[in-house]
């Protein structure tokens, strides 16, 4: 059976894999220090996104709403954006960055958020907040276009566009991570540090995992500063990790400042991490040190321990953000597994152009790729078309497919709310490769024991 790619055939969605653009813009917003985004729309567009962030991270993040009510929906609600900015600035004196994120309702009624930003810059800010540095950044995120993935992409571009400038070359590398976990950021920064590469990271999200402190000072927020954002134009190069999440910003930096750019690398698995390091080496001229040879060797050792005996030929379904799914599929292939179903969670008609997908279509025997997918594509194949699976990998929204069909599942991606602490573990880099391989194996082991399926094998492993 040859590999195929096609979009979801039904017009509607049964059990969505992804949410809409404003959520992506909000995820970008929380990565910046002293930044609180205002979502221009109904309150649910913020309240539920904050809830899903807090479900995933077990932390709370600050995001505001313009609180669109009935009158605003009829007569326009830009006055509520003006009020929201003022109220936010009055009460949060540290705030320097305020992305103003539109939604479906305010795009439909045609509220001009660019115009209101201009107006506020000309009137409110100089009048009431003279001397205070405040950046209002309009982000158009209509919910009826794209997905949270494209919303993130658009928001990162708009933020970069607003801030990036050119002063003196700073020798640093721009690292646009895409929608990843704090654990990934830690691992990526570690790899770069080993290579002695200074990087500006969009976004510094390690502080999302904030501590419970005796002095009550712990707060979850991003750490990428206005200064970091400004310096993006001075970099020696840009590495944009996730094709569908960071390309717009990377292209902007390349076109505007002529910064050499490597786009579309997703360093999941050994091979993709190798590629990432090679690209970094090319851009910076820095050598890959022996310490990383050792780390890589440790990861290879760990994967070797499980791959041939336990992972080989295991049939896997993957769903989630497209770059994550593609990266995981590639790594699964390296680990002798069979990723037979890939559900790409983003409304995007251009996957055919992705060289990674083209390579899989050319070389993989059995693989179905569904674009703009929902979870019904997975469930229907299992329950009605007898798709045999040994493992599902995806986020928590698909948990009942796995539970009801009794297929073991490893939680990856966003959101993961039904397992503790997964945001802390990387899937990227050598550490991520190790975590993935071992977690896949452990997930299969637990299933063997639960179902009484060759569980005695593990007696002597």
């Amino acid at each position: 059976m040859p590999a195929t790619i096609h979009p979801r055939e039904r017009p509607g969605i049964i059990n969505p894999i992804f949410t809409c653009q404003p959520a992506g813009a909000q995820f970008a917003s929380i990565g910046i220090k002293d930044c609180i985004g205002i979502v221009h729309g109904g309150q649910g567009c913020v309240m539920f996104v904050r809830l899903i962030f807090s479900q995933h991270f077990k932390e709370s993040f600050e995001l505001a709403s313009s609180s669109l009510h009935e009158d605003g929906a009829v007569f326009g609600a830009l006055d509520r954006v003006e009020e929201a900015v003022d109220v936010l600035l009055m009460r949060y004196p540290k705030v320097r960055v305020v992305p103003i994120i539109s939604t479906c309702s305010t795009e439909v009624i045609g509220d001009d958020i660019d115009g209101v930003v201009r107006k506020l810059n000309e009137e409110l800010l100089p009048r009431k907040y003279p001397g205070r540095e405040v950046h209002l950044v309009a982000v158009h995120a209509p919910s009826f276009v794209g997905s949270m993935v494209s919303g993130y992409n658009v928001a990162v571009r708009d933020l970069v566009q607003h801030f990036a400038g050119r002063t003196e070359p700073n020798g640093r590398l721009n690292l646009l991570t895409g929608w990843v976990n704090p654990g990934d950021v830690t691992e990526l920064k570690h790899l770069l540090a080993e290579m002695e590469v200074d990087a500006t990271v969009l976004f510094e999200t390690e502080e999302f995992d904030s501590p419970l402190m005796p002095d009550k000072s712990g707060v979850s927020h991003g750490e990428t500063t206005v200064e970091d954002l400004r310096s993006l134009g001075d970099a020696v190069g840009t590495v944009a990790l996730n094709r569908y999440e960071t390309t717009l910003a990377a292209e902007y930096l390349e076109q505007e400042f002529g910064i050499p750019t490597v786009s579309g690398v997703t360093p999941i698995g050994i091979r993709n991490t190798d590629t990432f390091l090679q690209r970094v080496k090319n851009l910076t001229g820095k050598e890959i040190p022996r310490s990383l040879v050792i780390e890589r060797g440790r990861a290879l050792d760990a994967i070797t321990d499980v791959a041939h005996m336990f992972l080989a030929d295991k049939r896997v379904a993957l769903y989630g953000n497209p770059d994550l799914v593609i990266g995981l599929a590639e790594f699964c292939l390296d680990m002798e597994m069979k990723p037979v179903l890939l559900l790409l969670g983003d409304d995007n008609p251009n996957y055919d152009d992705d060289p990674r997908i083209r390579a899989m279509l050319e070389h993989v025997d059995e693989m179905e790729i569904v674009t703009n997918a929902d979870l019904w594509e997975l469930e229907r194949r299992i329950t009605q078309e007898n798709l045999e699976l040994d493992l599902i990998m995806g986020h928590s929204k698909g948990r009942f497919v796995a539970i009801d069909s009794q297929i073991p599942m490893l939680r990856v991606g966003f959101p993961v709310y039904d397992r503790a602490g997964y945001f802390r573990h990387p899937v990227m880099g050598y550490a991520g490769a190790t975590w993935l391989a071992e977690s896949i194996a452990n997930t299969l082991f637990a299933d063997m024991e639960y179902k009484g399926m060759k569980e005695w094998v593990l007696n002597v492993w």
Partner: protein
Amino acid sequence: MPYHEFECSKCIPERLRHAVRKTEGEDLTSALPLGYLNTVPGSISERGCAYCGAKHVIGTPMKDVIHLSHGPVGCTYDTWQTKRYISDDGNFQLKYTFASDVKEAHIIFGAEGLLKQNILDAFAAFPHIKRLTVYQTCGTALIGDDIEAVAQEVMDELPDVDIFVCNSPGFAGPSQSGGHHKINIAWINQKVGTVEPEITSDHVINYVGEYNIQGDQEVMLDFFDRMGIQVLSTFTGNGRYDDLRAMHRAHLNVLECARSAEYICNELRVRYGIPRLDIDGFGFEPLGSSLRKIGMFFGIEDSAEKIIEEETARWKPELEWYRERLRGTRVCLWPGGSKLWHWANVIQEEIGVDVVSVYTKFGHQGDMEKGIARCGNGALAIDDPNELEGLEALEMLRPHLILTGKRPGEVAKKVRVPYLNVHGYHNGPYKGFEGWVRLARDIYNAVHSPIHSLSALDISKDEIPTDRGFVTRRMLSDRDLDPQIANRADLRPYSGRFDIIPEIRARRAERVANGEFVSAP
């Protein structure tokens, strides 16, 4: 007027009249905050939208219904799997959610054709489900799709299906409460009176404003079984669509969450003459009185007395065990709406804690009237609290525990205040006699957590105690307790199981098998 002014909100004077501290000599004519007004933009309020109030809170607990949101995917995704309203037949309502997936072209050219195809596809995907609700969202409200016409067209084509249309876009009102109202009225206008039920008892009720969070409704059905009361419908937890079309045949509406469901009870009273009895399903005395009142109404008070006697004998010693150990515990009762008044008094009387503050995210002034009436003097009442006010209140009130939702709970954690989830519950159900003990147990576990007791220690500055490798909850809770009370042999901690719902379902199934009366099939 005893308004409380938050430092953080001095710059938004319209917030002043939203917080009140009722003290000695004050009553409801002098102490009541404003409520249910438009939110101050940019204040970081906790409120949701009218769409979620309709779809997510009230619509979706109906268990045999395809819940389809007509709009872009986000509203559907965001409100999916964030609640714990279970059902007794497989949790279809938790597992499946549907979005018509409106895109840019539909916004321009209309999405009615798309909606129709969606409905047909959804019925085709789940041929055993014959009922469907369409929820309007902001986008489709603004483009003006005629959802009713599409629904009628499908019903004409597929005679065995029925479709309910709920027009409650996110912007329809200051909070989710607007959606509660809209779906109540839409349901009675469109659906009540369109099915004639089979009546199996002389005592017939609708159980209204009950959402089966972690099984609350099933706990109550077990009582109604034992009282011989037919529960014609539950609005809406674990409820069936067609049962709810027959609400007009009940003799009595038993109303639990008046915040979200008084509207339909009021209309049932006006249109069909069905009386409305407001009850409290939480706490031994209020629940007992509620069962007794329902019994009185039907002249079967003995059946209620029997339940109260049995359940009290079984569970009171466990409740008391906790009450003795929770006296003086300062709690902020910060729920969404109705629990602020359901719990404000009884949690003090029966669990022993002191309620130092109440708030409501989406309640109206009527909820605050009930809450303030039931609080003790001095409690701070806050309407539509925002993030900074919540933190300021925690700093000022120094509670030992906050009873609130998931995300505000994470905020409280950082200022070293443990939280219990009172929307979805930690380890519910909390209704019923055993359920109330489960709440007391959860409060005890949170307040007397040995790990929490470590959180104030600054190992860089403080002298670190090195004399022990562990502390138990008992060591903390009994430290200052009179030994005579601590050692009372007639009291014991909670003895029930992790999941009590299977026992209840087994009991009810046994009644069915034995041909005994059950309140609802």
